[in-house]
């Protein structure tokens, strides 16, 4: 992490409510301004606070998004502004723009998910679900821990097998990978048995067990939560009254800066600014 952010300090419940506000609205409201705001805040948040992922990851993401944007007009021929004809069917500007909007929204959601996995650490998940469903909490935290562990173990086993095998990468047989797989599976099974034993000996199944947590609900949690929940209610009411109805097909309706829409954009942008607040 390169910057400080309130999302790091706040209570897990606040964190959960905040992400459950930003991500669904980015997905569900197909309005270019909402998408643009979400994407912009996502990019600034990732660059300034979380820190950029590897360049290859960014490039893969960009390639995927471009492909998604281009693929839409190839399959959807709706729209009145014809760019050119492909196999006798029109390729239209509207469906191209719709593809761009959709891929921008998907990109924004991906950025928020990167941020979510960064701030929502295992201890926070255990704290959130621990008192409600202890089994689910243990399962979640174990599974989440297993993924990086599997990668680490896989790398180690491959390195060890390379020493036995002695062939170059392109000449390896299926047998090589099968033996790696088999070793990995048995190691993981052994590990999970060990973990289960140690959890039992610590009294995970005891009745009336209390949970220790280092998180406290502070004043800024209250403020954040109130603003987020108010904005969420507001957006649901505005959406029910016809705000955020941006139409792409068959012709683009154009931006509508009516009071309802302006309120919705403001409600979304205000909550988004919290991710940059120190």
């Amino acid at each position, binding site marked *: 992490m390169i910057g400080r952010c309130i999302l790091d300090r706040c209570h897990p419940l606040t964190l959960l409510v905040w992400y459950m506000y930003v991500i669904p609205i980015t997905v569900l409201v197909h309005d270019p301004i909402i998408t643009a705001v979400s994407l912009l805040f996502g990019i600034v948040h990732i660059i300034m606070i979380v820190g950029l992922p590897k360049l290859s990851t960014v490039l893969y993401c960009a390639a995927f998004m471009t492909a998604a944007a281009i693929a839409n007009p190839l399959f959807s*021929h*709706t*729209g*009145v502004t*014809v760019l*050119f*004809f*492909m*196999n*006798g*069917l*029109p390729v239209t500007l509207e469906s191209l723009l719709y593809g761009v909007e959709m891929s921008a929204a998907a990109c924004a959601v991906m950025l928020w998910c990167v941020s979510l996995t960064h701030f929502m650490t295992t201890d926070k998940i255990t704290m959130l679900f621990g008192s409600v469903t202890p089994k689910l909490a243990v399962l979640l935290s174990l599974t989440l821990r297993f993924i990086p562990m599997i990668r680490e173990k896989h790398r180690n086993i491959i390195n060890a097998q390379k020493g036995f095998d002695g062939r170059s990468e*392109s000449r390896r047989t299926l047998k090589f990978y099968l033996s790696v797989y088999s070793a990995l599976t048995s190691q993981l099974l052994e590990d999970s048995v060990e973990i289960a034993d140690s959890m039992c000996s610590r009294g995970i199944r005891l009745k009336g067990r209390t949970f220790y947590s280092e998180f406290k609900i502070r004043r800024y949690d209250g403020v954040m939560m109130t603003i987020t929940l108010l904005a969420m209610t507001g957006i649901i009411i505005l959406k029910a009254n016809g705000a955020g109805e941006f139409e792409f*097909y*068959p*012709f683009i*309706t154009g931006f509508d800066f009516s009071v309802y829409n302006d309120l919705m954009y403001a409600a979304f942008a205000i909550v988004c600014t919290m991710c940059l607040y120190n």
Partner: protein
Amino acid sequence: MKTRHIAMIGAAAAAALYLCVNFETTEEHYAAKENEKNTVGSVYLSVDCKTFLNTDKAKSYIDKGVIPSDGEIIKKTAYNISEGDSAFTVLKTAVDKNRIIIDYDNVSGKSVYVKGISSVYEYDGGDLSGWMYSVNGEFPTVASSDYYLSDGDVVAWVYSCNLGKDVGDTF
């Protein structure tokens, strides 16, 4: 090794694209249809979406000039047909002549399903809406590309909002 594989896949994709996909500019698309084959007769064809005018969307479509205010997208006109012309190929000739865009599915390579004419699509006028065609007042039970026309037929493409009941189909 890896770079060579990527280059080969790229080349194959480019070749497939060149062979299977036909790109045309708007002008080329409309100009290419002029060369006539030997005609064996003529048919009348009209396209209308009068039932669509009662829906909520109709006003914005008319304001934007997507459909005319009387709902008659193509007025009843005579078109020459050649051997093997179907209700669909005549529609294609007519819309190309009038510079109207249509959208259709041609997945199996034989039967064609017309999804939309002039941006009025199936389901735009409710769950039971879509395009139908009638020949001499009767609604055939085959796909439009499988109905071969003969001299003097009257083909009408109509938009229905209720499975054809509102445009005179009795089934």
